[in-house]
């Protein structure tokens, strides 16, 4: 086996690359426990039950978006009868005021970058000048 050294070196590199997710996660400190979004202190219930929001908050937001923009309908009534103003910055962020500690926790964990924030303003991010 003339090429033994090359083969062994290549095998080491290969297995290193194959197991790299393990080393990367170790180094970054992320665990398999999942994201831990910080829940709001004052309110205990969101506009919809937690299970629905976890799975389908995007659907709700899209309904709200089309209601406001395309149908000029600015309030929404939940199945439990309570009515809310359809606004991301105004209603959602009123309770979930800290986007970085709530929204971003799960989004970063899942590797999702919703483009809502290209336009919609997170009130906490305004310091006085743009950006």
């Amino acid at each position, binding site marked *: 086996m003339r090429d033994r050294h090359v083969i062994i070196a290549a095998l080491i590199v290969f297995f290193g690359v194959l197991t790299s997710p393990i080393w990367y996660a170790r180094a970054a400190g992320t665990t398999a426990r999942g994201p831990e979004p910080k829940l709001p202190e004052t309110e205990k219930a969101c506009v919809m039950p937690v299970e629905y929001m976890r799975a389908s908050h995007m659907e709700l937001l899209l309904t709200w978006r089309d209601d406001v923009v395309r149908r*000029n309908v*600015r309030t929404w009534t939940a199945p439990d009868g309570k009515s809310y103003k359809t606004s991301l910055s105004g209603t959602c962020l009123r309770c979930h005021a800290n986007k970085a500690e709530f929204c971003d926790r799960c989004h970063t964990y899942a590797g999702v970058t919703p483009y809502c924030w290209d336009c919609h303003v997170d009130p906490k991010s305004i310091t006085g000048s743009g*950006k």
Partner: protein
Amino acid sequence: MSISRRAFLGTAGLSALGLTGKTALDAFAQQPPHEPASTPAGTRWAMVIDPKKCLEAGDCTKCLDACHRTHNVPAIDNRAHEVKWIWKESFEHTFPSLQTDFPPDALRDKPVMVLCNHCDNPPCVRVCPTQATWKRSDGIVMMDWHRCIGCRYCVAGCPYGSRSFNWSDPRPAIAQITPDFPTRSKGVVEKCTFCEERIAKGEPPACVAACKAKALVFGNLNDPESDVRSLLRSRFTIRRKPELGTRPAIYYIV
């Protein structure tokens, strides 16, 4: 598997029809958006502008400052990329068909406020391929910045130059972001939306509220007692390029 080609194609065709049929029917059976009771049925919003009152106020920019601040309109230095919802234009450029060699002193070289005309028959709505811009039942030509693909066909379609495109991310050029109204992203077209979010709360448009000279009057054309109707009854007004059949909702008192 022994299936004849004819049978296969027949099954495939029926399956395709079954999968796409409902979507196609939905698309062509579009329901008109229904509006809430807050907008009285049969409203037609319009604005009457009195350039003379505007000129008397001098170098005032209160209306455009208010509009651009309320709606996070970026202030871009480069004229090629500027974004503006309401601005001053010369009388000759606003009304090119009224070109005259001897203009009256009152209007010679003096600026006139121009904005989206919220036409009754808007060419921009006719050409938009995604219905990202459409005409509401209350007359406002509205924009959906989520759906706009940035093709700029509406910009080509507008006979008045009322629309602006975001050539780059506008946020760096916004001095002070107003948090309760979104900014826009790069790559979409924007224009005046008659402050529909303020009208929904019963407030007049920002420019109208900011104008100290009361040069901008906003109201419902379908209400014979409204301010706009009484102005139209008593004063001679013109609109921009009426010969094009767009039927603008912005009237100028001359």
